[in-house]
C-alpha cells in the first residue's frame, strides 16, 4: 500500500498531484503566518505594533509560549500514536490526574526532585493501562480510552478534597511558592524551564519519528498492521510503548500546568484531547495512521495556541468553543483534501 503521496513510485508524473504535494508541504506554515498576521493587525487602531497589549509584543509572545507548553508536549507524543493508527482520548484526564497528584505532593512538602520522577512514573502507569486495554485486551481504542478518561477524571476529582475546586493552599498549609519555578519562572529570554524541557523533548521526538526504527515501525503499523506484523514487527509492543510515551508526556504536561497555575486543578486537562487532535490533523497526519510529522504537529499546535490567545483579545470568551469546533472541522476538511489519496 502506497500511503505517502510524495513517493516517486508513480510511472506517469501528474502535474496536479505535484502541485498538491507542494501545497501539502507548505500550507501549514502559510496558515500560521496568516493567523499571526491577522491577529497582529486586527487591533492596530488601539495598540502600537509590538507595543503593550499587542499580539506580538514580547510579553504576549512569552506568555503564549509559556501557556503552550502542555499542548506542545502532549501533541508531540500524540502524533506518534496517531501515526500508528491508534488514539488516546484519555490524555486530558491523565494530564489532570498527574497535575493533581504533583500539586498534592508539593503541597505536602515533597521536594521537586522527588515529585517530578514520581509523577513521571504515574504517567508510565497510566499509559501502560491504556496500552494494556487496547493491545492486550483488544478493546477498541476509542472505547478503552473513554473508559480510562472517565476513571482518571474520577480519580483526579476524588483526590481533591470535598468543598474545594483544586489542590491549593489551605489555611495552615500554603502551597510553596517555588512550585512556580518550573513553568513560570524566567530562565532565559523570559521563558521558563518547562518550555526548554518541552523543546528538548520535542526535538527528541522529531528524531525518533524520522530517524529511528520506532518511527518507521509506528508508520508501518499505521499503514497496514497485518503487513507490518507479517514482516516481523511486534505491533503490540510498538503501540503499547507509544501509549506509555503518551502517558509520560501527559505527566510532563500535567506538571507544567500545575506549576504554571500553582495548583492542581482536576479539570485543567479537559478538552486537551481535542486540542491535540486539532494540532495533529492540522499538521497533516492521516486519520487512519501511516504518515505524519511531529514537527508539523508543533506548527499545528502553535496555530491552535495563536487562535485561542488571539481570539480572547478580540471577541468575548463565550465564542471560544464555537471557534475551536470550527477550527477542528476546517482541519478535518484540509486534512481530507490534502493528505488523503483521492479515491480511485
Amino acid at each position: 500500500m502506497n500511503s505517502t503521496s510524495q513517493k516517486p513510485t508513480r510511472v506517469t508524473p501528474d502535474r496536479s498531484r505535484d502541485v498538491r504535494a507542494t501545497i501539502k508541504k507548505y500550507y501549514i506554515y502559510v496558515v500560521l503566518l496568516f493567523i499571526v498576521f491577522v491577529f497582529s493587525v486586527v487591533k492596530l487602531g488601539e495598540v502600537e505594533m509590538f507595543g503593550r497589549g499587542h499580539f506580538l509584543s514580547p510579553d504576549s509572545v512569552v506568555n503564549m509560549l509559556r501557556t503552550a507548553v502542555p499542548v506542545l508536549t502532549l501533541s508531540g507524543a500524540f502524533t506518534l500514536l496517531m501515526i500508528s493508527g491508534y488514539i488516546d482520548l484519555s490524555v486530558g484526564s491523565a494530564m489532570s490526574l498527574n497535575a493533581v497528584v504533583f500539586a498534592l505532593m508539593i503541597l505536602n512538602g515533597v521536594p521537586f526532585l522527588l515529585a517530578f520522577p514520581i509523577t513521571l512514573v504515574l504517567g508510565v502507569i497510566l499509559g501502560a493501562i491504556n496500552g494494556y486495554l487496547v493491545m492486550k485486551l483488544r478493546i477498541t481504542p476509542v472505547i478503552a480510552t473513554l473508559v480510562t478518561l472517565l476513571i482518571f477524571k474520577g480519580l483526579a476529582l476524588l483526590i481533591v478534597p470535598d468543598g474545594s475546586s483544586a489542590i491549593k493552599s489551605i489555611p495552615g498549609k500554603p502551597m510553596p511558592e517555588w512550585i512556580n519555578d518550573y513553568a513560570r519562572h524566567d530562565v532565559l529570554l523570559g521563558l521558563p524551564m518547562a518550555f526548554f524541557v518541552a523543546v528538548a523533548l520535542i526535538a527528541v521526538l522529531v528524531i525518533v519519528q524520522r530517524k529511528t526504527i520506532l518511527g518507521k515501525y509506528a508508520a508501518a503499523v499505521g499503514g497496514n498492521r497485518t503487513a507490518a506484523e507479517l514482516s516481523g514487527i511486534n505491533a503490540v509492543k510498538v503501540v503499547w510503548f507509544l501509549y506509555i510515551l503518551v502517558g509520560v508526556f501527559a505527566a510532563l504536561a500535567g506538571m507544567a500546568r500545575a506549576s504554571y497555575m500553582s495548583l492542581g486543578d482536576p479539570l485543567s486537562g479537559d478538552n486537551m484531547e481535542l486540542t491535540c487532535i486539532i494540532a495533529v490533523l492540522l499538521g497533516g497526519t492521516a486519520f487512519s495512521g501511516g504518515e505524519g510529522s511531529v514537527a508539523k504537529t508543533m506548527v499545528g499546535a502553535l496555530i491552535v495556541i495563536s487562535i485561542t490567545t488571539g481570539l480572547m483579545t478580540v471577541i468575548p470568551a463565550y465564542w471560544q468553543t464555537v471557534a475551536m469546533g470550527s477550527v477542528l472541522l476546517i482541519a478535518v476538511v484540509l486534512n481530507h483534501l490534502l493528505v488523503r489519496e483521492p479515491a480511485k
Partner: protein
Amino acid sequence: MNVDTKLMQKKPTGSRMGKMSNETFITLFMIVMLILVFGIAALVVPNFYLPQNMLNLLANNWFIVIVGIGVTFLLVTGNFDMSVGGVIALTGVLSVYFCQGANVSQNVLANGLGLPYGVAVALALLCAMGVGGLNAFFVARLKVPSIIVTLGTAMLARGIAQVITQGAQRNTSLPDVFGFIGTMAIPATTIKISVLVMLILVFVAFIFEKKTVPGRRTYLIGANSEAARLSGVKVTRHLTSLFILSALLAGITGILLASEFKAGVSNRATGYEFDALVVALLGGVSINGGRGSVLGMFVGAIILSVVTSASTGLLLSPDWQFILKGSVTFIAILAQRFALEHRKV
C-alpha cells in the same frame, strides 16, 4: 454472522432451531446482571427495594435512553456520535431563543424572535437535524472517523448555544406554553410525559430494529459494510439517515429538558454523550460486530441508574460517578466477551 443466525431463526430448520442469537443472549445476560446488581444494591442500601424507588430507576434516566437509541443504532454500524450532548444544549437554547418575546427588554438575553411555540420547536429540531447532516456529510461522504467529526460538531453545537446565551442561559420572557410538555404528568399518575415519550420511542425503535428492512440493514452495514454495499444497500444514505435520526432524538431530548426547566442553558447535558455510549455498551452493543439492541441499551440504562443511585444511597461523593461509570463499562465489556466466548462449548 449475526445476521445469518437471525435469518435462520425465521426459517427454523433442523438442529439450529431454537438457538438464540448472540444479541438476545447478551440482552438476557445483562438482564441477569441487572437483577444481580439490583439484589446487591437492595441488600446494602436501605429502602432501595421500595416500588417507588424502582419506578424512579426506570423513569429518571429517560433522557439518556432517548439519546441512547440513536447512539445505539450508530454504534451498531460502527460509528460514534459524540455530538448528542452539544445538540441537546443547542436545541434547548434555540427553542428558548425562538420563543422568547421580541424587543421586550433592554437585556439582550431576554429578547428572542417571538415565534409561536410550535414553530420554535420545529425550527430548533431542524437545526438539530442540520448538525446530524453535518456529521453524516463528514463521516459517510468524506470517510472521516466519526469520533473526530462528532467531537468537533459537539463543540460547534455547544459553542453556538454558548454564543446565543453569552455563555450563560436564557430563561425570561417565555410564554406559559413553553413549560407544559416538560412538566406535565400523565393524568392520574406522577409519570411525566417525557417518560411516556421514552417508552414510545423505545417501542418504535424495537419494532424498527427487529421487523423492518432498514432496521436489519443497519446490522448488515455493521457486520460488513463492504458486503452490504455490494449487495445493494445504499450505505451512505443509510448512515446519513441514522446520523440525522440520532441528532433528531437528541433534539427532542433538548426540547423536553428546556421545557422542564423553562430555560435554555448552554451547559446543559455536558457529558451525556459519554452516558449514552456507556448505556449502549452496558447493553451489549458492539462497535465491531454489528451486534446490539435497543432493548439491551434500555437494560444498560437501568443498570447505570441502579449503580449511580445506589452509590448516592451509600453517600458516596458525586465524584465517584466517573469512576463507577468507567469501571462498570469496563467490567461489562469483559463480562460480555467472556460470556460469548464460553457460550455452549
